[in-house]
């Protein structure tokens, strides 16, 4: 299938990727370039800096692609260079049967008609990545019953394993309290790693991530904030663990929250079919996105959405291996009408796009109807409903960014209520401006300004 250089250009994530790709156009950099007889897939090996060449392939039809290089860009420079050469010099590609690694990839990848290559992974940090494929099961009642029984046994075994791991976590936490939290930072890395490993062994991978990431967040904080952070974070982890043990006594939504925090995944099709999952159709604005490299080496790409009612928020999450970065589900400022289905929760936030309409004209910024005190109060209410609530999106109306003693803060219009912000140079041009609205990711300690509607036009944080 023909591929044009213009299409390659359109696929590039940024100009520097194209520039980097242009340097790889020498045939000598490519030990292998081949395509199948039907011209449906092309593949190659690029001599990179690693000991073995990178293996990459792409489908000529929908341009789905993969590369084994560690680049966080997608497509990476190797893929762009391979596509580029395919567009300009298809004769350089020998005809061959796809090797096993290409066939495997083709078999695993989601067909183009099912949406973008990277979208909608199952819930939970252990989601298997962007290339997962939903395989239809044959309809066989007996087999279904057996499978259900197997799932139930497996679930029970997993729950038992998690509870056992949580008991070990209790012992670990008591040890930390016994030794004293003042010296916790000195042993945090090794201690948290060991505790996280035990949780992973017990199949509580979600909670393991919280424990594993604790030291990284801890050392990123000012020294004065560390003691408080350790108490709140360990307390949060304990609350979640205690809730999981008592999940039978919890309301359904909170029980789902507890299971999800442990890493119990809910697959896309299960969520879409779940009658308890709230569905909201609205006009959404992408307030911004951020990419987090998790301790388990997965990239978590978060896209934060604000509804036009100025109150409702949503979080779309995509997981991908760190070797293949993906774009956010929507770029900052993008507006669209969509039906979102929310994961059942006492404080619904994480969602998945069930149906998305065409793009709408961009707004000047996220809509917001609450003042800063009201937005904080709403967050507190959500925290009360979901005691281990993590990051939350606050939509604040009529605010101002100020410099309070050298630290950035969001204040209400009269400058009394304040919300400390992480000090990012990128937001400093907003200092002193009267903001019609602002979207802030709030983690309970400090906020990260994501977007604002200002007299100088919309502002979005750069990733």
């Amino acid at each position, binding site marked *: 299938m023909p591929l044009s250089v*213009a299409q390659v250009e359109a696929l590039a994530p940024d100009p*520097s990727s194209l520039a980097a790709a242009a340097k790889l156009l020498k045939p000598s950099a490519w030990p292998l370039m081949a395509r199948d007889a039907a011209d449906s897939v092309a593949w190659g090996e690029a001599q990179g800096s690693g000991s073995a060449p990178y293996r990459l392939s792409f489908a000529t039809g929908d341009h789905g692609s993969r590369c084994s290089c560690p680049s966080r860009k997608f497509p990476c420079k190797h893929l762009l260079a391979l596509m580029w050469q395919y567009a300009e010099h298809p004769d350089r590609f020998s005809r061959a049967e796809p090797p096993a690694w290409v066939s495997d990839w083709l078999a695993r990848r989601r067909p183009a008609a099912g949406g973008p290559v990277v979208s909608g992974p199952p819930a939970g940090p252990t989601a298997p990545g962007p290339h997962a494929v939903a395989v239809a099961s044959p309809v066989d009642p007996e087999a279904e019953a057996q499978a259900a029984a197997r799932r139930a046994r497996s679930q029970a075994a997993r729950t038992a394993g998690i509870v056992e791991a949580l008991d070990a976590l209790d012992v670990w936490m008591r040890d930390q*309290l016994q030794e004293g939290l003042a010296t916790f930072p000195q042993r945090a890395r090794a201690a948290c790693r060991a505790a996280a490993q035990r949780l992973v062994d017990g199949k509580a991978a979600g909670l393991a991530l919280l424990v594993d990431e604790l030291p990284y967040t801890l050392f990123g904080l000012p020294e004065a904030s560390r003691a408080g952070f350790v108490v*709140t974070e360990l*307390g949060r982890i304990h609350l979640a663990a205690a809730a999981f043990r008592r999940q039978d006594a919890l309301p359904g939504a909170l029980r789902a929250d507890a299971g999800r925090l442990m890493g119990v995944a809910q697959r896309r099709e299960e969520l879409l079919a779940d009658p308890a999952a709230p569905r909201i159709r609205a006009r959404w604005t992408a307030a911004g996105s951020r990419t987090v490299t998790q301790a388990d080496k997965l990239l978590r790409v978060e896209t934060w959405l604000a509804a036009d009612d100025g109150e409702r928020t949503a979080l779309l999450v995509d997981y991908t291996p760190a070797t293949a970065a993906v774009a956010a589900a929507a770029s900052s400022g993008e507006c669209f009408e969509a039906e979102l289905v929310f994961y059942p929760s006492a404080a619904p936030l994480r969602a998945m796009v069930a149906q998305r309409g065409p793009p709408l004209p961009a707004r000047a910024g996220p809509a917001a109807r609450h003042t800063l005190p009201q937005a904080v109060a709403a967050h507190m209410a959500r925290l009360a409903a979901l005691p281990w609530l993590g990051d939350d999106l606050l939509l604040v109306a009529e605010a101002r960014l*100020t410099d309070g003693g050298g630290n950035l803060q969001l204040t209400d219009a009269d400058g009394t209520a304040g919300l400390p912000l992480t000090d990012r*140079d990128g937001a400093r041009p907003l200092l002193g401006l009267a903001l019609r609205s602002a979207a802030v990711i709030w983690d309970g300690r400090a906020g990260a300004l994501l977007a604002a509607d200002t007299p100088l036009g919309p502002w979005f944080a750069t990733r």
Partner: protein
Amino acid sequence: MTPAERDGVLAAFSLGLGRQALPPVAALAAAPAEARPLAALAMAGQLMRLTPPPPAQAGAGWRLPEDAAPLLPDPARAALLRLFEKADAVTAHYVAPLLLRQIAAAGWRLHPFDLPQLDGVLRGLDDHVGPVERAWLDRHAPPREELTADTWREGGSADRLRFLQARRAADPAAARALLAASFAAETARLRAELLTALDIGLGADDAAFLHACAADRAAGVKQAVEALLAKLPGSSAHIARLAAACAALTVESKGVLRRARLVFRPPAKSATPLQTLDQLGLAELASALGVAGGALPAMAGDDAVRHALASCALRDGALGVALGLLGQIEEPVWPGDLESFGAAYANLPADVRQDVAARTLRDEAALGGDWRRFGAQLDAPLRRDAAGTLLRLPGWTAFLAGLPAERNLDGTLLPVLALVPPALAPAFSGSLAPIPAVRRPRATALLACLAELAARPHAETAP
């Protein structure tokens, strides 16, 4: 848990329960003893999480100044950010000053929200940015105070040189006295730098000071002094240089018409006419050779001598003579060679520099030279008529056709395109059509930005 109980619990946790027992907490009185520490941890942590953020802190803080100039329109902003995204320093520092000048000339200013992304590009371009950009660049620096005659020694080297130059332009003797008063106390590098300020308004009154400085032990200072003395008519260095030039030039009569020709014989191996005639004016040279001043240009025997005489004419301020000589040069003069005219060219009024540059853009001009040098010498975009000439040159088409096919061409194209006036950006874009856009992404962005400047004169769109 009361605040007092919480404080007691936190103190015990900090020290370690092995050293300080957990104080009683009324709410946990009924809980089993072994469960109390973790329950107290969860309660204390949750209390902290449920505590609203502290009130806003007062503080004037830093903010960008106001500027009434209209903001660059969004399409031009987007192109500007694409152009400089992860740009290499050489490109950024060559293209940015020229483009900033065009933006200012079109009546726009940079959007403050883009300053964080352009920070690396703008740094060091103090002379090309407005008050808002300068305030952004200085945001971490202590407030800058204007230097005075009393405080000028307290400034940085660049500021001090600037101050001395300004002072020199207003009152050469006072500036010299200031420099003389502190000269011995300065570092060798700074002594050499500050001496260059005397080039402005250089006259016989400076001779005594310069002769005193000639005894300086630093080689850099000696060189600076020699260069200045050589420019001083009547100084021994100048007289020696004039004598050497006269010895290298002889007037010979050749041919049927016995026309007088100026023939150059290098006084030293590989010395060029331009080097030999450096620092000399055309009138004094003619006088020393015993030739009428007006006749000398017509006597130039070859292009190298014409080039050198043009330089001498520029030094005298005889622009018409210089342009006439440049026009007679038979071999194409690469515009970048104007650099060889040194300060004589750089100090010309901008419109005259444009005249000289335009004169060098002739049909036979070879366009593969160093455009960076050309741009640096011109220090402004090309005048529209000169740019139009460039676009129509057969050499331009040949230049584009001769570019390598398989690599990114931004590095080659940007130095030329940075000189394109906005009105001709669409025409230059058209001329690049045969080159795939993927090979020139930054060039495309630059021309798009310029085209936006031409398409949106601010007077029509400013609020």
